[in-house]
């Protein structure tokens, strides 16, 4: 039962039955944006013409502002830190794109090392089953196949779903995924033709998504060679040093910790932060090791394409979702940047 089939007419049953064991999330339209949110009915989901969510779904496990702990000045528990982590709800997310799931896998590596585990990330992540939707019509800004991924990439997903028109074909990839599929009464054994149709879709998407740049030379060059390339001045010239690229990116994960204090007490909050900003690296002395936008822009691309691969067995820190390409106010296109790094 590696593969199972669900008639789209039964989506309501699927969501109802799944909803008995966990919260069901899916892509929902909210104003101009598409985001993942709880759904109670199949019609809540914006699947018609769905490309991807506006913001990356990292915000589900790593919210832009997250309360860590709180403290009070007076009373019995004065000056004692209280853990403010919300109990994670068990959820299944339908419609996650393979690129974003791959990004979760990269963040898993980063939020855990041999000494520490970031419980804020993992408590929510572990309570979630990811039901991904293979991309049959990638956007022109997408480039997953250039960064070792694929429109039907299975890494990071629990279930991969293929849209066959009348049916969805479910491919369970993990124990969590198999349990989810097994718990739905309206799942049927697929025909050979269904599986064949899935393979055709997969191949078609792969053909559309041609490799747009190589990363072989980036791999071969030393850090210092890349660091001292002339290209960084030109690449950074138009940059506004806003944080759009970092905040919409599914793999950017830097944060800043702030104590928000009042007369009565306070809260410790962690907020997204971006290496594009001057304040990110300024020291208490006033010295800033990344004083101009050249150093800041270089950092972001070096991190994704050199530092992460060096530390994580060649894994590239970019999944090719294209959000930064589409949303950068001045059209700094990461594909063009990597082409220059790889020249």
């Amino acid at each position, binding site marked *: 039962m590696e593969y199972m089939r669900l008639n789209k007419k039964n989506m309501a049953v699927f969501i109802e039955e799944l909803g008995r064991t966990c919260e069901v999330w899916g892509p929902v339209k909210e104003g101009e*944006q598409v985001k993942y949110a709880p759904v109670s009915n199949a019609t809540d989901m914006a699947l018609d013409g769905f490309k991807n969510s*506006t913001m990356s779904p990292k915000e589900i496990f790593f919210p832009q*502002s997250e309360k860590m702990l709180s403290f009070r000045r007076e009373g019995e528990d004065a000056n004692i830190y209280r853990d403010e982590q919300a109990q994670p709800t068990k959820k299944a997310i339908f419609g996650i794109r393979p690129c974003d799931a791959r990004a979760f896998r990269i963040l898993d590596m980063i939020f855990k090392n041999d000494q520490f585990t970031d419980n804020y990330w993992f408590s929510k992540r572990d309570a979630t089953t990811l039901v991904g939707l293979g991309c049959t019509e990638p956007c022109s800004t997408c480039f997953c196949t250039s960064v070792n991924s694929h429109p039907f990439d299975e890494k990071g997903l629990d279930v991969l779903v293929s849209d066959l028109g009348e049916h969805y074909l479910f491919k369970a990839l993990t124990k969590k995924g198999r349990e989810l599929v097994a718990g739905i009464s309206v799942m049927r054994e697929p025909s050979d033709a269904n599986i064949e149709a899935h393979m055709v879709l997969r191949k078609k998407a792969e053909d559309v998504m041609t490799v747009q740049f190589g990363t072989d030379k980036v791999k071969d060059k030393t850090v210092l060679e890349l660091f001292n390339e002339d290209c960084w001045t030109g690449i950074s010239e138009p940059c506004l040093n806003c*944080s759009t690229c970092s905040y919409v990116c599914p793999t950017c994960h830097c944060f800043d910790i702030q104590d*928000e204090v009042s007369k009565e007490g306070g809260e410790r909050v962690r907020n997204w932060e971006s290496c594009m900003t001057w304040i990110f690296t300024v020291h208490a002395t006033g010295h800033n090791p990344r004083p101009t936008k050249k150093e800041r822009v270089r950092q972001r691309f070096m991190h994704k394409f050199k530092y992460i691969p060096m530390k994580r067995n060649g894994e590239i820190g970019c999944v090719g979702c294209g959000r930064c390409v589409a949303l950068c*106010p001045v059209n700094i296109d990461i594909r063009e940047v990597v082409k220059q790094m790889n020249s």
Partner: protein
Amino acid sequence: MPIRTEKIRKVAKKLLNDHRVDVVIGYKKGTIPLKNIPYFAKNAEEADKLVWDGNCRGNLASYLSRFNDKRVAIIAQGCVSRNIVGLIQEKQINSDNLYIIGVPCTGMLDSRKLIAAVPGEITEVTENDLYVIAKGRGFEVTMNRGDVLSRNCDRCTVRNPVLFDELAAEKVNEQKDPVRYEKIKAVEAMSPEERAAFVDELLSPCIRCYACRDACPLCYCPECFVDKSSPQWCGKSQDSTDVLSYHLIRAFHTAGRCTECGACEDACPMGIKVRLISGKVEKEIRENFDGYEAWKDLKTQPPLTVFKRDDPQPFVKE
């Protein structure tokens, strides 16, 4: 090749070849439809990449102060030329080293309007003075150019540059008495509770990337109040009070200085109509200071920066 692009390249090449300037700030064709990239041409070959079309949004004046040690030519339509006047008045740039290639402007396209008007992903856009044609897989939609202009451009009354060394085209007719502030007036008419709810909803998608600030030529402070940590004026979380504080304080700082170039709104990745806030401030200035519009000439100072003995408000004298 459109006439403006042709002339811009010609002028830029001459300036660079004659060593009159070190760099020409303009736009290069973008990598995706509806986007151009700010471009810094340093030789004649690079000058041949300069373009002018309906996607030259943003505001090139915001790059100027970074080139104070260089001789610079900049391509400037009406709004950008007004911001240059402002930067000169506020002593941020050295006008001796500046050459302005003025562009009489016909308005920039609103990429969000175009994207919303078609049934799929746009892969190609062509335009002329009257029409814009958007193409994608299985569709081709022709629109009147006037219907898909940016919200600031469709009511702009200063399309011709107010300060320039040379023009890249014949001057265009200015629009007279456009309809302004419809939405702002509607918000003014709301009850305080409705207004608070409106602003909350307006700003709820904000991710505090500060693209609106970073795209704005008025925001040249070396350290913005919102980044300051000692003292910390503004909280850094997504708390709605902090988000609102950022937007309101920034809007106040634009009072009497905003040229309505629309760079803030164009830069916003979340499509927030941030000009509804700065526009309210701009409206107050216009109504309270004899219809003042920022920086239409080098002489007139913005009303909030001058003192008059006959000021009708007593508080400035007390």
